[in-house]
C-alpha cells in the first residue's frame, strides 16, 4: 500500500527567461490535452500556466514514472532547452512551493492578487478534466487557506503592486504624471482589465480599448469608462496613444519594428510607452530600438518591481512562517486521514472476527444460556476488541507530524493484512481514501 507522492516540476520568471516561458504558455486546448494524457496514466495532475510560470503538479504513487511523463511533455513543447530551466520539488517541498505560489510569495510582484485566481482556475480545469481528484484537490484547498491567511494576517497584499501598477510606476518615469495621457489597451482579458483600472486610477486621461472580439472590448469599456476602437486598425491608434498596454493571447507579436515605425511620424516626437503583459509577447523586442519608443515586456517589469521589493521583504518573512505552519497542519491532517481508513478497516475486521466467534460460541452452547448470559458473551467479545485496539487507535490518530505518508498506518495495514484489495466495506475508506480510490 504505497502513498501518493506530490511532485512539482516547472519553471518561472526566476528560472527561465520569457523566450522559454512563452514556448510553454499553453492555451486551454493544449492544457486539456496535456491533462488528459497525464490522467490516463492514473496519476492526478494540475497544470498551472500563467505569464510568469508554468508548473505541473502531480500526485502519483510512482513519482519516477510521473516525473518522466511530465518531463516528456515539457520537452516536446519547449524543447530540450526548456528542460535546463526546470526546477523540481517533491513531497513536503512541493507542498511548500505550492503554498508559496498561491500566497503570491513566489510572484514576480510579491503579494500580487492574481496568482490565487490563476491557481484556482488551474484546479477547476484539472477537476473538470478529471485529472485532479482527491489528493490534489485537498492540497490546493489547503493552499488557498494559506493564501487567505497570508492576505489577512500580513500587509503583503496591501502594499502589493501588481504588474499593472508597476507599469504605472514606469509611466511616471517617462511622463511624470499620467494626467491627460491617452492609454490604448490591446486585449480586454483579465490582465487588460486590471491594467485599465490601475491606469484610470493613476489619472489617465482617456482609455481606448481594442480587442479581437469587439463584444469583450465593449463590456470592459462600459465597466471602466473607456472608448472602444477597431482592432483591425490597431496600428492607426498609435498616433493618439501615449501608453499602450498589451495583454492578448496572440501567439505572434502584434507590434514589430517594421509595423510600428511608419505610425511614429504622426506622433510628432511624443514618447510612446509600450507595456507588454502578455506571454507569448505581443510586442517584438526590436520595437524598443525605435527612437522615442520605450517597450517593456514582463521580464523588464520584474526588474522595476525588484526596486521596491525590499519594503515587502519583511512581510514576506511573516508570510513564510504562515506557510510553514499551514504545511505542518496539512501534513498532520493528511497523516490522520491516511490512518483513518486503516483504523476503520482494522476495527471492522476485528469486530467481524469477534462477532463471528460470538456467533459460533453461542451456536455451540445452544440453549444452555439465558438471554442475559448471551448478551454478556457478546459484550465480552466487544470489550476485548476495544481494549486491544485502544492503543493502536490512539497511535494511529496521533501520528502526523511528518509530512510523509503515515508510516504507522502503512505498517498496521501490512501487519494485519489489510488492503483496499480486501475490499472491506468501510464507509470512510470509500469516501476519503485516496488510495483505495486510486487502486481500483
Amino acid at each position: 500500500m504505497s502513498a501518493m507522492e506530490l511532485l512539482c516540476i516547472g519553471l518561472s520568471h526566476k528560472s527561465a527567461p520569457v523566450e522559454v516561458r512563452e514556448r510553454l504558455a499553453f492555451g486551454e486546448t493544449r492544457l486539456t490535452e496535456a491533462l488528459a494524457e497525464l490522467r490516463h496514466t492514473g496519476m492526478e495532475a494540475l497544470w498551472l500556466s500563467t505569464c510568469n510560470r508554468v508548473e505541473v503538479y502531480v500526485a502519483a504513487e510512482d513519482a519516477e514514472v510521473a516525473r518522466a511523463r511530465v518531463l516528456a511533455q515539457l520537452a516536446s513543447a519547449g524543447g530540450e532547452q526548456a528542460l535546463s530551466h526546470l526546477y523540481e520539488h517533491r513531497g513536503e517541498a512541493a507542498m511548500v512551493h505550492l503554498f508559496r505560489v498561491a500566497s503570491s510569495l513566489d510572484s514576480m510582484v510579491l503579494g500580487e492578487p492574481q496568482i490565487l485566481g490563476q491557481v484556482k482556475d488551474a484546479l477547476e480545469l484539472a477537476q473538470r478534466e478529471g485529472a485532479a481528484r482527491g489528493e490534489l484537490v485537498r492540497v490546493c484547498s489547503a493552499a488557498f487557506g494559506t493564501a487567505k491567511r497570508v492576505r489577512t494576517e500580513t500587509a503583503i497584499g496591501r502594499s502589493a503592486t501588481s504588474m499593472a501598477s508597476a507599469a504605472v510606476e514606469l509611466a511616471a518615469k517617462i511622463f511624470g504624471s499620467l494626467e491627460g495621457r491617452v492609454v490604448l489597451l490591446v486585449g480586454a482579458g483579465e490582465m487588460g482589465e486590471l491594467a485599465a483600472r490601475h491606469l484610470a486610477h493613476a489619472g489617465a486621461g482617456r482609455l481606448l480599448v481594442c480587442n479581437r472580439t469587439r463584444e469583450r472590448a465593449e463590456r470592459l469599456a462600459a465597466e471602466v469608462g473607456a472608448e472602444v476602437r477597431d482592432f483591425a486598425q490597431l496600428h492607426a491608434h498609435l498616433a493618439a496613444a501615449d501608453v499602450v498596454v498589451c495583454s492578448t493571447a496572440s501567439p505572434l507579436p502584434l507590434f514589430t519594428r517594421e509595423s510600428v515605425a511608419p505610425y511614429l511620424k504622426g506622433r510628432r516626437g511624443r514618447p510612446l510607452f509600450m507595456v507588454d503583459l502578455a506571454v507569448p509577447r505581443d510586442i517584438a523586442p526590436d520595437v524598443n530600438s525605435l527612437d522615442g519608443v520605450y517597450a517593456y515586456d514582463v521580464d523588464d517589469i520584474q526588474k522595476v518591481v525588484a526596486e521596491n521589493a525590499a519594503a515587502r521583504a519583511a512581510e514576506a518573512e511573516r508570510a513564510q512562517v504562515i506557510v510553514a505552519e499551514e504545511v505542518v497542519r496539512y501534513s498532520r491532517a493528511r497523516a490522520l486521514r491516511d490512518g483513518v481508513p486503516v483504523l476503520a478497516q482494522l476495527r471492522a475486521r476485528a469486530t467481524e472476527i469477534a462477532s463471528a466467534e460470538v456467533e459460533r460460541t453461542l451456536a455451540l452452547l445452544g440453549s444452555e444460556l439465558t438471554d442475559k448470559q448471551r448478551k454478556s458473551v457478546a459484550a465480552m467479545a466487544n470489550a476485548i476488541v476495544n481494549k486491544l485496539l485502544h492503543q493502536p487507535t490512539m497511535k494511529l490518530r496521533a501520528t502526523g507530524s511528518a509530512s510523509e505518508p503515515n508510516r504507522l498506518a502503512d505498517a498496521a495495514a501490512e501487519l494485519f493484512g489489510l488492503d483496499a484489495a480486501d475490499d472491506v466495506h468501510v464507509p470512510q475508506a470509500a469516501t476519503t481514501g485516496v488510495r483505495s480510490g486510486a487502486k481500483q
Partner: protein
Amino acid sequence: MTHSLLSIACHAYGLAALVYLALLVRPVEALAWAGRLMVGGGLLLHGVALAFLWTDQGSLPVGMAQGFSTVAFLSLAIFLALDVAYRRPVLGAFVTPLAVAVLVPGVLLRGGSSPLDVDGRQPLLPVHVSVALLGLAAFAVAAMVAAMYLLMERQVKGKKFGLLFARLPSLQFLDELHRKLVLWGFLALSLTLVSGAFFASRSPGGLWQWEWKTVATLVAWVVFGTTLQARMFGGWRGRRVALLTMAGFGILLLSFLSSYAPLGGGAFR
C-alpha cells in the same frame, strides 16, 4: 574683502555640491534644504562681492575671472529659481559641481586680462555683457539638464534601473525644462548678437569682422535656432535635441573662452 567674500561663497558652493551628491544617494528632505540654504547663502555673498567689483571698476567687471565668476553666479541663481519653482533639488547634483568647476579657476586666477579696450567702453556695454553672460548661464544649465535627460533616457531605454533611474525626474519634465531653458538662452543670445552688432558697427572695423568670437557665437545661434525650429515644427524631441543643445553649448563656451584668450584676434577693437 571681495576676494574673501568670494572664497567663502566658493566654499559654500563646494559644500552644497557635496550635499547634492549625497542627496542623489539618500533622498532626504533635510539634505535638499541644506543644499538650498548653502547655495542661497553663497549667492548672497557672491552677489555682494560682484557688486563691489562693479563699483570698484567703475562700469563693469571685466576680465576672465569676473566673467567666469559671473557665469557661475548666474547658473546657480537659475538653478535656485528652478528648484524653488519645481522642487527638483536633484538638479543641484549636476549644476553645483559645474558651477564650482567654473568658479574655482576664476578665484585662483584673479583679475586676468580684459577683453574690452577702454575706448570700447560705452554706457550700453554692461547690458551687452550681462545679457551675454546670462545667456551662457542659461545654456550651461540647459546643457546639464540635457545631460540628465540623456542619462535618464539611457536607463529607461536600456532597462537599467540604477540609482539615477530612481532619483532623476521624469523624461517629460527634463525635456520640457530643457526646452524652456534653451528658449530663454536663445532670446538672450539673440539680444547679445544684436547689441554686439550695434557696437561693432560703431567700431573702426565696421559691422562684420572675422573673429572667433563672432563666428562661434553665430554658429551657436544657428544651432539653437534650428533646434527650436525642429522642436516646434519637426516634432524633434528628447535625445536628438539634447545632443544638439550640448553641442551648441560647447560652441558657445569656445566663443566665451576665445573672447578672453583671443585665438587670432578675438576681441572687438
